[in-house]
C-alpha cells in the first residue's frame, strides 16, 4: 500500500500552503517526507532547488510544530526555544538569549521563560512549540495539525497569530490540517488530498468556488449536490434530468466538457440560494420547487433544510429572513446562475 502516491507539489517561497484532507489521506505522510522522517521509495524532494532526499532531518534546516507539541519536558521554556540555536548555530550564550527573548516575544510568552512545559496550558505549550520552530529562522516551517488539541476560541486566536507571524517572518509554511475552515481562512494555497493523492490545488477561494470533484466540493464547506443526467447542451447552456425526472436547463461555461448521457452534479452552496414563498417565485430561472423540513438558528445565520426531490438541500439565510417561512410547506428556491457549478459525478 502506498501512503502517498504521485504527489507533485511546487511551493512558492514565502507562501502559506495547507495540506487538507480527511485522516488517512496522506497529508501527515507528505509532511514527514518533507521533514525527512520518511525516505521516499521513488521521486525527489527539492528545497531551494537542491535535492534533500539524501539529507537527514537534522541537516535540513526546517522548523516543525507537532500536534502533540513534543516539548522537552526536562527543559524550561527558554531551553526548549533555544534548542535549535544550540544545535544549529555557533551563537554565544548572550546572542542565543537575545534570539530566545525575541522569539518568545513574537509568540507573546515573554514572561514565562523559566517555566517548565508541564506548568503551562495547552495554548501556551503550543506557542512555545511555535517559538522553538521559528527561532533559528528556518526557510521552511512545517506544522502538523498544530491547533488540533485546542478548544475553538483559542484555536481561532492562534490561527490569527500564526498568520501574523507568517507575514512578519516571511518564511514558507506548510500546514497540515483536517479542519477545512482553518485551511480556508489561513492559506495562500490549498492542497486537498484524498487516498494518498492530491485531489486539487489552488488558492482557497478558487478551490471552494470551482471544485474539480464531488469530493472537494463536499469536503470544503457545505455543498448541495444535485445529481443530474446530462440530456443536451449548447454553447453556454446544459439541460439535464433531475433524480425525480424533472428537466432543468442551466447556464454554464463548462457545458463543453460534458456529453449527453454523462452523470453530473450541480453544486449550489447554501449561501447562494434564494428562498421565496411558493406562489411568488414562479418563473425565476434557474429555480426549483422544494419542501421545507426544518430550520436551525446558528446565531449569525440560520440554516434551512429542504427536501428537494427526496434529497436533503441546505439553505443559509439571514435570521431575519426566516420569519416568512415558519412551519413546513412548499417553497421555491432559486440561485445565481454564475455561482452554481456543474461538476462530474464521483468516479
Amino acid at each position, binding site marked *: 500500500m502506498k501512503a502517498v502516491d504521485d504527489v507533485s507539489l511546487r511551493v512558492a517561497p514565502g507562501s502559506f500552503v495547507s495540506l487538507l484532507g480527511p485522516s488517512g489521506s496522506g497529508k501527515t505522510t507528505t509532511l514527514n517526507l518533507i521533514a525527512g*522522517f520518511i525516505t521516499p521509495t521513488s521521486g525527489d524532494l527539492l528545497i531551494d532547488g537542491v535535492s534533500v532526499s539524501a539529507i537527514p532531518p537534522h541537516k535540513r*534546516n526546517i522548523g516543525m510544530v507537532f500536534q502533540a507539541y*513534543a516539548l522537552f519536558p526536562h527543559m524550561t521554556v527558554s531551553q526548549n526555544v533555544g534548542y535549535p540555536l544550540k*544545535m544549529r548555530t555557533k551563537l554565544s550564550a548572550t546572542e542565543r538569549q537575545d534570539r530566545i527573548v525575541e522569539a518568545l516575544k513574537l509568540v507573546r510568552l515573554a514572561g514565562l521563560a523559566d517555566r*517548565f512545559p508541564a506548568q503551562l496550558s495547552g495554548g501556551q505549550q503550543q506557542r512555545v512549540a511555535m517559538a*522553538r520552530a521559528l527561532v533559528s529562522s528556518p526557510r521552511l516551517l512545517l506544522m502538523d495539525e498544530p491547533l488540533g488539541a485546542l478548544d475553538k476560541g483559542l484555536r481561532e486566536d492562534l490561527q490569527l497569530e500564526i498568520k501574523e507571524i507568517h507575514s512578519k517572518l516571511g518564511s514558507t509554511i506548510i500546514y497540515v490540517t483536517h479542519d477545512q475552515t482553518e485551511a480556508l481562512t489561513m492559506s495562500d494555497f490549498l492542497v486537498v488530498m484524498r487516498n494518498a493523492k492530491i485531489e486539487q490545488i489552488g488558492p482557497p477561494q478558487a478551490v471552494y468556488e470551482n471544485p474539480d470533484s464531488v469530493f472537494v466540493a463536499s469536503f470544503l464547506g457545505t455543498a448541495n449536490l444535485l445529481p443530474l443526467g446530462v440530456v443536451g447542451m449548447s454553447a453556454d447552456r446544459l439541460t439535464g434530468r433531475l433524480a425525480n425526472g424533472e428537466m432543468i436547463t442551466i447556464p454554464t461555461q463548462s457545458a463543453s466538457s460534458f456529453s449527453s448521457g454523462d452523470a453530473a452534479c450541480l453544486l449550489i452552496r447554501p449561501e447562494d440560494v434564494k428562498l421565496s414563498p411558493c406562489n411568488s417565485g414562479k418563473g425565476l430561472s434557474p429555480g426549483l420547487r422544494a419542501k421545507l423540513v426544518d430550520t436551525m438558528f446558528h446565531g449569525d445565520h440560520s440554516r434551512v433544510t429542504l427536501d428537494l426531490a427526496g434529497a436533503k438541500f441546505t439553505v443559509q439565510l439571514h435570521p431575519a429572513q426566516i420569519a416568512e417561512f415558519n412551519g413546513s410547506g412548499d417553497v421555491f428556491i432559486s440561485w445565481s446562475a454564475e455561482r452554481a457549478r456543474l461538476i462530474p459525478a464521483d468516479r
Partner: protein
Amino acid sequence: MTVQEIDQRIRSRLVIKYNPRSFIVFLLLFPACAWMAFFYITPIAMLVYNSLAEDGLSILSKTVANPVYRSVFATTLEIGAASTLGCLLLGYPVAYALTVSRGALRGILLIIVGLPYWLDYVVRSFSWMVLLGQRGLINNFLLYIGVIDKPIQIMYTFLSVCIGMVQILLPIMILTLFAAMLRIDRRLMTAAAIHGAPPWKAFRTVFFPLSLPGVYAASLLVFISSLGFYITSALLGSPKESMISQSITLLAATLLKWSDASALSLVLLAITMAIVIVYDRVFSIDDLWGGKDA
C-alpha cells in the same frame, strides 16, 4: 453561610460515605494484604521482639559496635554498589535497544533477557566456578595464548562475587529500565532531530536525561536486592567477601545465637530503609518535570 450549612459541611467531611467502588478495591486488596500481614509483618515483628527481648536495645549497640559486623556490612555495601554499577553499564544499552526495537525482535530480545531465570541461580553460581576456577576456561585460555604463565586467582575474590551477582541481577536492571524508557515519548527524539540534533546529540540531550529517573529507580531496586544476597557470595567468594546474610545464617543456623542474628537482621533492615529514604530525597526529581508521564 448559616450555622446549618457549616454543620452540613463538617458532617460531609467527617462521614466516610459508602462507595461501592472503594469496597471492591478493598475486596481486591484484602487477600494479598492478609497474606503479607501474616507471613511478612508478623515474622518481622517477632524478629524485633526476639532481638530486644533479652537485653533490650543494648544488643543493637553491641552489634553496631562489633568491628567484625562492621566490616561485613562495609563489604556488603561495596559488593552491592559495584554490582549495581556493573548492571547499569551493561543493562542500559540493552534496555535502550529493547526500547527502539519493534515487534518480533523485541519479543525475542525480551525472552533472551529473561532466559537466565529459567535456571536456578545456585546452579548458575556453580557454573561460574567451571569458568573462573584455577583450571577453568578463562585461565586455560589465557595460559594457552601466553598472556600469563601460571593460573591467576579469579575465583573466591571480590571480582568473582561481582561477576556472579551482575549476572543474576542484570535482568531486573534491564526490565526496570525498559519499563521506564517505554514511558519516554519517542516523538521528542523526532522533535530533536528536526530542530538540528544529530542522533547522538538527540540521545544525550533528550533521551538520556529523561531516562535518569528510571536509572535511579532501577539502580535502587538492584542495589537493595543485592544487599540480601547469600548463595552467590558464599559460593564464589572467600570469607573476606562474606555478606551480611551469610553472617546472619551463621549466627542463626550454626551458632544458634538467635538474638544476635535478629539484631543483625534489624540493622540490615534499618540500613536498607535509611538508604531508600536518603536516595528518595536526593533523586526524587520527577516532580520537577510535572510527574512521571509529563
